[in-house]
């Protein structure tokens, strides 16, 4: 029981000098790189500080042209980028849906740290709500012939219902299971995803079971003579502006809305509560964070964003079948979040792009930069490449491509500006020297802490030794030397 307490030997009543704390003879946790050797990202830091100091509207100003470029991508038809085997617009539409899911899942996994392996369940509930309410096959169809809802606005009218039902299912799944921690939660959510798929499979009177539900509603916009059902109908295939592109733009709109909303949440008490729960749930609870309530909110918000994406999917394909709401997709969504960088809204969108675009890039492509390749065979190996990519990435770049750079304060910007200014006028000796000399505030010792403690504080809760004030009545091990 190697826990050391400062006064190893009980000080005599007459207070002798307290023995300086022997740093715990703990083994350095594997892989802990001492501070010194960490890469000193000069440029990276300055860039990051510059981005943080930007006001949010300014950040969106930088973002807008980039979003416009992404939106026009399917039309620009860039030679190498455009997929050969599959329609580029439709692939980008699928990317839009996966990006929405990644944002929703990021709230649950990236920010609140709740491992959810059954996220495809919410995607399925969103799709099926829309299909059940608008497909002529389903008994509860509310659109024109039987019901009262006119076909043109059916999709838009049912969307909020789909989001509401998915949010409720997030509540139903969350409330009993959120008391569980870590791996237990993962398995229970995996079970939930499977249960939703099997319900869709077995309740065939309502969900059409294995035969699925067809001609699901879609927005009837831009109706012209040669496009009797509007631009969003699957029939609109001819021109470059086919239905895939329109659905891609629609999903972009929803992506921007959800980025704004999640951004608002991130910069508020809710976002801070989530990150606190992710970092250390017990400490968060003691600091007054109602952890259960916010974990439930994370599930509900994640679920509703997944519901929106499900509704868009059902609208685009206009046919819903249970087969592709399976575990493999749940895992792919998780990989998109982890690949992109957990906790980073923009990073997970990049992750979603890689997951959707890469296999389609190879499909049907016979030569790449002149090298003849058999695109279909490579696409065939899709899961093999994903598996290898995951394993390699987790070893060398586990925090994902764009690591999290969270801003949790609504009005924290001036501080970053001030920080940037102090950094700018820092003498070449680097901040450390300047800091040591100037003792800015009164009463602070400010000097480097106790020996051997700079850098990552030996935060005491080392690998596994129970420590002094642990509960479970282990006062007996308090001093460890009784």
């Amino acid at each position, binding site marked *: 029981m190697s826990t050391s307490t400062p006064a190893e030997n009980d000080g005599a009543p007459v207070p002798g000098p307290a023995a300086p704390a022997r740093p715990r003879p703990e083994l350095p946790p594997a892989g802990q790189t001492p501070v010194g050797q960490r890469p000193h990202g000069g440029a990276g830091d300055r860039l990051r500080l510059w981005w943080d100091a930007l006001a949010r509207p300014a950040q969106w100003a930088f973002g807008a042209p980039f979003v416009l470029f992404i939106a026009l991508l399917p039309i620009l038809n860039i030679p190498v980028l455009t997929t050969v085997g599959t329609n580029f617009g439709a692939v980008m539409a699928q990317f839009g849906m996966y990006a929405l899911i990644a944002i929703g899942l990021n709230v649950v996994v990236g920010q609140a740290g709740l491992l959810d392996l059954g996220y495809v369940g919410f995607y399925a509930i969103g799709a099926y709500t829309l299909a059940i309410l608008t497909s002529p096959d389903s008994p509860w169809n509310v659109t024109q012939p039987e019901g009262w809802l006119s076909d043109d606005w059916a999709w838009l009218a049912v969307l909020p219902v789909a989001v509401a039902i998915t949010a409720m299912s997030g509540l139903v799944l969350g409330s009993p299971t959120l008391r569980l921690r870590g791996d237990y939660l993962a398995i*229970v959510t*995996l079970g939930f995803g499977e249960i939703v798929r099997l319900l869709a499979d077995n309740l065939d*009177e309502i969900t059409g079971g294995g035969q699925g539900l067809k001609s699901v509603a879609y927005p009837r916009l831009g109706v012209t003579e040669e496009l009797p059902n509007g631009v969003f109908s699957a029939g609109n295939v001819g021109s470059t502006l086919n239905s895939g592109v329109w659905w891609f733009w629609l999903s972009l709109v929803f992506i921007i809305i959800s980025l704004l909303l999640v951004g608002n949440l991130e910069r508020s008490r809710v976002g801070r509560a989530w990150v606190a729960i992710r970092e250390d749930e017990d400490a968060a609870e003691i600091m007054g964070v109602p952890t259960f309530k916010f974990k439930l909110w994370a599930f509900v918000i994640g679920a509703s964003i997944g519901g929106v994406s499900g509704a868009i999917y059902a609208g685009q394909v206009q046919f819903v079948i249970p087969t592709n709401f399976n575990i493999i997709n749940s895992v792919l969504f998780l990989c998109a979040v982890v690949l992109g960088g957990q906790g980073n809204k923009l990073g997970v969108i990049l992750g979603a792009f890689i997951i959707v675009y890469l296999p389609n890039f190879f499909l049907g492509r016979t030569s790449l930069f002149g090298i003849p390749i058999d695109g279909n065979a490579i696409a065939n190996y899709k899961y093999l490449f994903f598996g*290898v*990519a995951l394993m390699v990435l987790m070893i060398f770049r586990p925090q994902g491509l764009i690591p999290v750079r969270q801003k949790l304060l609504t009005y924290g910007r001036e501080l970053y500006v001030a920080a940037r200014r102090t950094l700018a006028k820092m003498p070449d000796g680097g901040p450390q020297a300047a800091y040591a000399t100037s003792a800015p505030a009164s009463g602070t010792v400010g000097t480097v802490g106790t020996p051997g403690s700079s850098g990552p504080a030996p935060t005491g809760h080392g690998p596994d030794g129970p420590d002094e004030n642990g509960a479970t009545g282990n006062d007996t091990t308090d001093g460890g030397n009784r």
Partner: protein
Amino acid sequence: MLVHDVLAADPLIGFDLAALGRNFWALTVDGLTYGAVYALVAVGYTLVYGVLRLINFAHSEIFMLGMFGQYATLLALGFYPSGDAFDKGILLTVLYLGIAMIGGMVVAGGAAVGLERVAYRPLRKRGAPSLVFLITAIGASFVIQEFVHFVLPALTGGELGGVNAEQPIRLVEPEVQFQIFGANVTNVTLIIIFSALILALATDMFINRTKFGRGIRAVAQDPVTATLMGVSRERIIMLTFLIGGILAGAAALLYTLRVPNGIIYSGGFILGIKAFSAAVLGGIGNLRGALLGGLLLGVMENYGQVVFGTEWRDVVAFVLLIVVLMFRPTGILGESLGRARA
């Protein structure tokens, strides 16, 4: 109005207790047979979780490799795959069964140790958080599946692997031995349940009585202190994966006795998830819990299928898991191998 007549028209979810009553014992015997396979695979999950706090998603693929391992051994022994059962007399059959099981164990055990060295050791060296381990495990599961799906047929000239399941080699033709309460008990059932029991006992003794077993329990409870006490953590982890692999290999042979045409690249995935649910059901990290969880899940699945309808099998399994975890978060027998960690 609309909703009412849809639900009343034809009961979406049947509820037929009489059918359960009629077939109770037969379902129990069948349930125990599959439960035994779940149990042996669940032990692999429980050991690895107890020692490393890691859901070894790829363990289901280790089981699948075990199936191919025992199949390759039989091919090597000169068996020609045909739909019919081989009848070479009892002693020879048992000998071949033994050799095939050992072949399965060697392949599965080797694959498990290889998996640990390639996928998990580098992560442990870098002190990765548990989510990273999980993602690697999922990646490894994909890699092994697609290896058997595409690469293995290329390597073995189409002999092994590929899209279709292997043509079965049947060593034992199921013959009804005796009946308990009217349920037929075949020799295949006997072999599976007895072998599983013996293996479970052997593993239990190994964990609780031998030096290595103590090492595993020590590393499970407190890796740092165990290392200080001279227990080599890396070797113990390797041993844990080895035992998990061996049991999965044995389970693979027993499973193919019952389902000879189940040897396909995707044959292990769903079974693995069920086996892990069984391990969690019994109490993750608890050896006896895994065995109890496996048998219980096997039997409950069968009952659920008859009562609610055969399409509800997996739903019954997952609902059972969620209900147990809500009221007993550490599983039926509670965690024991490692610390109590909710």
